[in-house]
């Protein structure tokens, strides 16, 4: 296809604001006469507040709220699933904290210093309860009960054995499948509890309006769901709540749900009748959200000729103290598993378990990186047992074009229409030198190199042909200005990847506009139509679909009006970008002089009272097409220290039509860095002594890679496919960019050392321990001996 802007190198529209410091994030919003808020947090992992005395705090002029001052009805902060699939166990402030850091009360005062003082003057008497930090312990009889009653939609349900929710699936005859298998492998995997570590801590600024309404500036991946949730909690009409769209200093899933700072700041602002700013510190932010932590048990069968037969998967998810829609994750984990490789029969048991830990939420990949790590480890092991090349084994079994894909659990499925898996694996293996990789475990010497491969994918949106348990649609408004530019108005949040630039290019392409003529204008929940959320790698695919469809509508109107002016049939008119005039020009091919610029047309439309050329589009994506990625990672392991370093990384991706090649490449780089971090570094370990995370919220002890930790070389490539359901053939990328990274790194470590690791993160401590178990420490040649010889 010959595009005039799509696929071409164009600079980011938001780049200028970002390099000049002019970009406004929620944390940069200051209102006149604003109060500063602080939150009183539980120092115990499980307790009951017996008494709370706020008088001394109020005496110094602070506005104070406790659990007594907020609506008591349970809610769920994430509104992506349909209500019938949504469990609710949250309160804005609680009298029964279930993790260290859970909000009990909050204060607002003239300065942050005063707010801090007021906070310290609140007296609380706790009855400390027994706490549980392990999901297996938590499910046992006699374990402390974390929740008694919760809601499923509006129905009260009793919580048994701390099980938050469950999902079981079965397809085909698994027993028969295993009977027909020549090899059956059983493995258990344990993942880590990760922290998103987005640089911008969560913040909310709330202004109570004179009419009883409120305006909110906050860190969010969804302005509309924020407004719906605030309406639900505080019983304020949705139309009276306005949530502003701002730049977001990183999300990675941590603001799919409405962050707790929002309802707390709203409650304070409503009480104070003044604007309130509640900005979390980094250490508070780390106590606000984290990833789910899973224990997987797999049993997979394969025939001698390398065909997978059937599989069993058990997924015990530690979700922490509250549900942030853990239920759909039980479904997606099953989906990520069955959509990687073809299995004739499956059985899946997913259990989400409460523990006295920080609540878990989506974290780039929504369970996919973890599931892919387990599955791709097993695939490597099976290939080795079968004596097959791991790549050929994968190619023999993968789910590809024409197969059914589970984009977001068992209720969101569509047929794969574009697939570049084979090309990714073939080209990637050539680039990394797959054929020359070492044999696992055969290397001697201190430094051992290894090459690992893993493939994966992620869904693009949660669209599907039929209604599901996941809400997924997007909205766009487009209007033509008298200067020939268009204003694009969308609620969709850009997490940083440049999603809105892709939208602008889609619009420019469809309308024949120079890219600079597409304005991405400021927006809020009042001036936009609904977009569910920036998650599920849906920004370019679903949001871009809305942008394309709204542009099509506008194009139709442009052509209709132009046909009057140019006296030609609308369907014969064409539009081209005229760089000289800096305008789109509508013209009749082959008839000189029959042309008009878009600006002239819009101006004429005003003077002649034809009305504004504009359109609105609410768009439901018809499918959930997977974008595919393949990772090839070369590492070196120091067998004396267990330290692993990345040497070369090759990443191939099929994202359909590539709209912004440089930004897409950036996603792959970022995906690797985050995957690296999650594979070898990150873990929110809990201390039994304090009941808190060991690092206590300080990133000095929750490390992420620095500029010095990047691989020596990262090569990326995109294979050419075209997604028929996507805007100009495009699919998503944000999550697939990372998903197979952990698996490829783990497989590379195996290739170097001959040791498999079934627990994340794979730290130097664990590696060295296994190496020492496996082999004796070899004498290393000391250079000094030479000195003596001479």
């Amino acid at each position, binding site marked *: 296809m010959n595009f005039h802007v799509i696929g071409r190198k164009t600079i980011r529209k938001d780049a200028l604001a970002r390099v000049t410091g002019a970009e406004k994030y929620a944390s940069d919003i200051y209102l006149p006469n604003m109060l500063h808020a602080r939150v009183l947090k539980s120092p115990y992992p499980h307790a009951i507040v017996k008494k709370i005395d706020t008088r001394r705090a109020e005496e110094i002029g602070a506005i104070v709220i406790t659990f007594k001052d907020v609506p008591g009805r349970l809610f769920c902060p994430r509104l992506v699933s349909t209500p019938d699939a949504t469990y609710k166990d949250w309160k804005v402030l609680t009298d029964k904290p279930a993790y260290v850091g859970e909000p009990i009360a909050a204060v607002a005062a003239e300065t*942050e210093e005063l707010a801090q003082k007021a906070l*310290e003057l609140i007296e609380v008497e706790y009855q400390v309860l027994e706490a549980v930090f392990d999901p297996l312990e938590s499910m046992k009889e006699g374990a402390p009960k974390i929740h008694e009653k919760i809601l499923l939609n509006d129905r009260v349900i009793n919580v048994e054995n701390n099980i938050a929710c469950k999902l079981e699936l079965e397809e085909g005859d698994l027993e028969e499948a295993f009977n027909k298998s020549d090899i059956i492998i059983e493995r258990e995997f344990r993942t880590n509890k990760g922290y998103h570590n987005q640089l911008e801590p969560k913040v909310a600024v709330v202004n109570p309006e004179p009419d009883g309404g409120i305006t909110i500036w906050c860190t969010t991946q969804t302005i509309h769901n924020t407004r719906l949730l605030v309406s639900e909690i505080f019983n304020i009409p949705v139309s009276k709540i306005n949530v502003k769209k701002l730049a977001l200093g990183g999300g990675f899933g941590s603001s799919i749900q409405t962050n707790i700072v929002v309802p707390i700041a709203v409650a304070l602002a409503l009480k104070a009748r003044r604007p309130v700013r509640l900005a979390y510190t980094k250490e508070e932010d780390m106590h606000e959200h984290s990833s789910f932590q899973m224990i997987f048990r797999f049993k997979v069968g394969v025939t001698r000729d390398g065909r997978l037969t059937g599989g069993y998967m058990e997924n015990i998810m530690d979700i922490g103290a509250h549900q942030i829609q853990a239920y759909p994750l039980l479904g997606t984990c099953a989906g990520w598993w069955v959509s990687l490789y073809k299995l004739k029969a499956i059985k899946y048991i997913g259990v989400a378990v409460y523990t006295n830990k920080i609540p878990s939420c989506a974290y780039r990949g929504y369970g996919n990186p973890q599931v892919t790590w387990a599955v791709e480890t097993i695939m490597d092991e099976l290939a080795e047992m079968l004596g097959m090349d791991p790549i050929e084994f994968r190619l023999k079994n993968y789910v590809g074009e024409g197969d059914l894909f589970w984009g977001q659990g068992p209720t969101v499925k569509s047929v794969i229409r574009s697939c570049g898996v084979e090309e990714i694996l073939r080209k990637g293996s050539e680039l990394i030198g797959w054929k020359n990789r070492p044999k696992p475990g055969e290397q001697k010497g201190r430094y051992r190199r290894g090459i690992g491969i893993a493939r994966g994918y992620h869904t693009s949106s949660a669209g599907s042909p039929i209604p599901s348990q996941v809400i997924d649609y997007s909205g766009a408004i487009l209007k033509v200005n008298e200067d020939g530019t268009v204003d694009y108005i969308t609620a969709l949040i850009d997490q940083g990847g440049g999603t809105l630039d892709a939208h602008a290019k889609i619009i420019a392409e469809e309308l024949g506009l120079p890219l600079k003529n597409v304005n991405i204008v400021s927006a809020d929940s009042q001036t936009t139509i609904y977009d569910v959320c920036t998650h599920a790698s849906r920004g370019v695919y679903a949001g871009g679909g809305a942008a394309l469809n709204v542009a099509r509508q506008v194009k139709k109107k442009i052509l209709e009006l132009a046909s009057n002016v140019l006296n030609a049939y609308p369907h014969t008119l064409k539009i081209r970008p005229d760089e000289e005039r800096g305008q789109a020009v509508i013209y009749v091919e082959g008839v000189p002089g029959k042309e008009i610029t878009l600006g002239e047309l819009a101006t004429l439309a005003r003077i002649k009272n034809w009305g504004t050329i504009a359109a609105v589009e609410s768009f439901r994506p018809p499918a959930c097409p997977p974008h595919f990625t393949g990772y090839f990672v070369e590492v070196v392991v120091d067998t*004396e220290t267990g330290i692993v370093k990345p040497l070369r990384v090759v990443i191939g991706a099929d994202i359909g039509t590539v709209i912004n090649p440089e930004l897409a490449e950036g996603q792959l780089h970022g995906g690797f860095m985050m995957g690296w971090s999650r594979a070898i570094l990150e873990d929110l370990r809990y201390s039994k002594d304090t009941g808190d995370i060991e690092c206590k919220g300080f990133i000095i*002890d929750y*490390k992420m890679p620095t*500029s010095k930790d990047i691989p020596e070389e990262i090569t990326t490539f995109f294979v050419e496919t075209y997604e028929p359901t996507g805007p100009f053939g495009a699919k998503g990328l944000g999550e697939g960019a990372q998903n197979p990274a952990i698996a490829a790194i783990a497989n590379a470590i195996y290739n170097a050392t001959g040791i498999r690791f079934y627990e994340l993160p794979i730290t130097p*401590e664990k590696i060295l321990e296994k190496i020492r178990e496996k082999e004796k420490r070899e004498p*290393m040649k000391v250079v000094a*001996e030479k000195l003596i010889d001479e």
Partner: protein
Amino acid sequence: MNRGEFMRADYINLVNTHIIPIEFTYHAPETIEEALKLLREYQGQAMVIAGGTDLIVDMKLRRKEPKHIISLGRIRELDYIIEEDSGIRIGAATKLRSIEKSRIVYERFEALHLAVKSIASIQVRNMGTLVGNICNASPAADSAPPLLIYEAIVTAQNLEGARKILMKDFFTGPGKTCLRNDEIVTEIFIPYPPRDSTSSFLKISRVGMDLAKVNIALLLKFNSNVVEDFRIALGAVAPTPLRILRAEEYLKHKPVNEENLRKVEEIVSEEIKPITDVRSTEWYRREVSKALVRDALNIAVNKVMRK
């Protein structure tokens, strides 16, 4: 900089890194004399601040709550690196970054140069000082092992006068030194290492900018293929940075060969007393200490050969 450690039980509501949630009076004396007077006047309630990179975090975390802060920032006479016949003198207000960039440190005290370069980020090194690094007395302080092997001498002053403290006597426990609360460290003197000796510094950490899981500095001098002088110190493996005299004694007058190296490694792993904490485990620290001993020795030997 053990920021996660030594916190009060109710820290979760006391810590606020947005602000410094305590109040204090700030003093910016222009002479040492003036600073010492202030320290005496507010004895027990005052803390001395040089770069501030540790103390400010400690205050945000409520680990330290001084009523008075005495800044050395305006005392110009404390910012220097002076070369003398027998060694160099580094003033208390001298930034880590200046030491890292110092030619004489690079040429004569390579272990110190490398150690300073490995401390935190450039931003922190532009603010923090060497004296601050040791006064904070972290068991993992990167500058401590080099200062131990170079046998540095700390000058501490109070109103009565100055006293010299040998580096080996300076640290008394995690976060603790032998300084009295009316004393200010004004200078560190580092004697030149023996002619023809070489030194090295190594560190194992989680990422490119980090505190040490283990760090090591050593000094080596040969005399016709046997070791004439050997000094070795490790950090983050005991309550204080540790010089391993038994290993030093063992290797003296011996050749560096596999057998002797093994023995040195063994002694080191016996002498250290590592713990398991948020950064690493006791076992790992003990185990990699051996590799670090070997690597650091290798580097030093290599340098001798190149000379």
